[in-house]
């Protein structure tokens, strides 16, 4: 079960109760939403500290605006929109472009260096480089579509609904994103291309 599906299932039970004023249900809902919102915000902002700020602001929004969720869309779709809006507000407030998760890449490398596992370190370095390329190199729409479709496992219909675009457009963005990332993989590690002996 993907994170989104799991969150949707939890929300189906908790959202109506929280909207009626059940404080315990609201706390459980917010506690469950926080990590998902953080990850979405991380993809949106590309910075761990900014993602923390966005996630915290979304929690406040859930406190003040949950009653506005009318149930016409999935809860996760609504929550994703709230997160996108807050990330956008943060970027405007900070007055700067998306900056990169170099710190996260360093963290990933540091984690493997601590394990003293050369093979693991090489893999983590590649993953960190790919994360950097994902968060920094792709246009926002492609980044969002790739994240939802290939990393979160959403269907193209779900991606389209969440991002307010047609499934065909979502597929086009996904193709472009995959092409950019996978071309990057081949370019960064030419030994893959050199193995053409088949």
């Amino acid at each position: 079960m993907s994170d989104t599906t799991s969150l949707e299932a939890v929300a189906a039970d908790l959202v109506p109760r929280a909207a009626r004023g059940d404080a315990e249900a609201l706390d459980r809902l917010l506690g469950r939403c926080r990590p998902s919102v953080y990850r979405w915000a991380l993809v949106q902002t590309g910075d761990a500290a900014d993602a923390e700020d966005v996630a915290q602001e979304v929690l406040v929004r859930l406190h003040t605006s949950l009653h506005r969720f009318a149930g016409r869309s999935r809860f996760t779709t609504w929550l994703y929109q709230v997160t996108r809006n807050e990330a956008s507000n943060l970027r405007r407030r900070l007055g700067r472009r998306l900056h990169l998760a170099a710190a996260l890449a360093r963290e990933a490398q540091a984690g493997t260096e601590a394990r003293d596992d050369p093979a693991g370190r090489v893999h983590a370095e590649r993953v960190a480089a790919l994360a950097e390329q994902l968060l920094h190199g792709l246009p926002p729409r492609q980044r969002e579509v790739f994240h939802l479709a290939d990393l979160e496992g959403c269907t193209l219909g779900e991606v389209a609904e969440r991002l307010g675009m047609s499934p065909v457009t979502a597929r086009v963005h996904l193709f472009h994103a995959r092409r950019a990332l996978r071309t990057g993989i081949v370019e960064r590690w030419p030994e893959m291309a050199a193995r053409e002996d088949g």
Partner: protein
Amino acid sequence: MNCADARQLMLEADLAELSPDAGGELGAHLATCRACRGAADEILSLEAGLAGWLAAAAPRGDTGAALASAAATARRRARQRRLAGALTLAAAAVLATLLVLPARTRMPGSSAPVPAAPLGGFSVASPGREVMVVQPADPRFVVVWYLPTRRSS
């Protein structure tokens, strides 16, 4: 299918298609070509690593403290909104009083009180802003009042 064609397809293929068991032309090529299968495995491995990296990303700090902070912020903002609303109403009442009172006074040199003109007030909602237009007793003047608007989520 040759390797060049396979590599082009691999750049856009769904993850499930990057397997020798996936069927189709690409799957058939991957089943027989070790080099392309190695490239496909590399893509699968890195994208799985990326998904794992993102799944493991978690906010720092205690969840309980974050929830308590969010609740306190929400309560403070609600209080601020209520206060702003009350101040706006009070200011509107003061302004309306100031506009109506002169209309009930006598005009210079006249013994008859000037009848109070009906106070025409209406609000216009424009994108991102609320405006109140008040027509006082003297038709030469119109008071336009910009009201603070609440942010919507």
